[in-house]
């Protein structure tokens, strides 16, 4: 239960930061609808943000492991 709550909180935090970053990157002056090119930009931005998150997570993990091995 606690695990699920933490996972949900993390997913929400990721979602919020991603929305913020991709909105800022992909929407210039907000128009009367989300046009096609903006949707494509958001989709790509999302995928890259997930890649970034996973890359950072792996890099941090391997750093922690190296430091533990050093001790």
């Amino acid at each position, binding site marked *: 239960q606690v695990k699920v709550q933490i996972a949900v909180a*993390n*997913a929400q935090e990721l979602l919020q930061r991603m929305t913020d970053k991709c*909105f800022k990157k992909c*929407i210039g002056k*907000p128009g009367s609808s989300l046009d096609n090119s903006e*949707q494509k930009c958001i989709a790509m931005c*999302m995928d890259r943000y997930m890649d970034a998150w996973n890359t950072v997570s792996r890099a941090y993990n391997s750093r922690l492991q190296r430091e533990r091995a050093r001790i």
Partner: protein
Amino acid sequence: PQLQHFIEIESQKQRFQQLVHQMTEVCWEKCMDKPGPKLDSRTEVCFVNCVERFIDTSQFILNRLEQTQRSRGSFSETMSD
């Protein structure tokens, strides 16, 4: 149950207000160049569109995330490990 209902309503309002604060800040950066003596109609339209597009973006991302999870299921593993 009445108290519970009251708490639920109040925390809904709280989330509403929090998002209003957040969107005001994001849209302020997008729509407000130099604060003038009045909110001109072009800027007001920009704020309204900004709110609509921000919510669209948020829903678009949420929907797409759910679809990806259903087909891959890789992200939830990453998050819980």
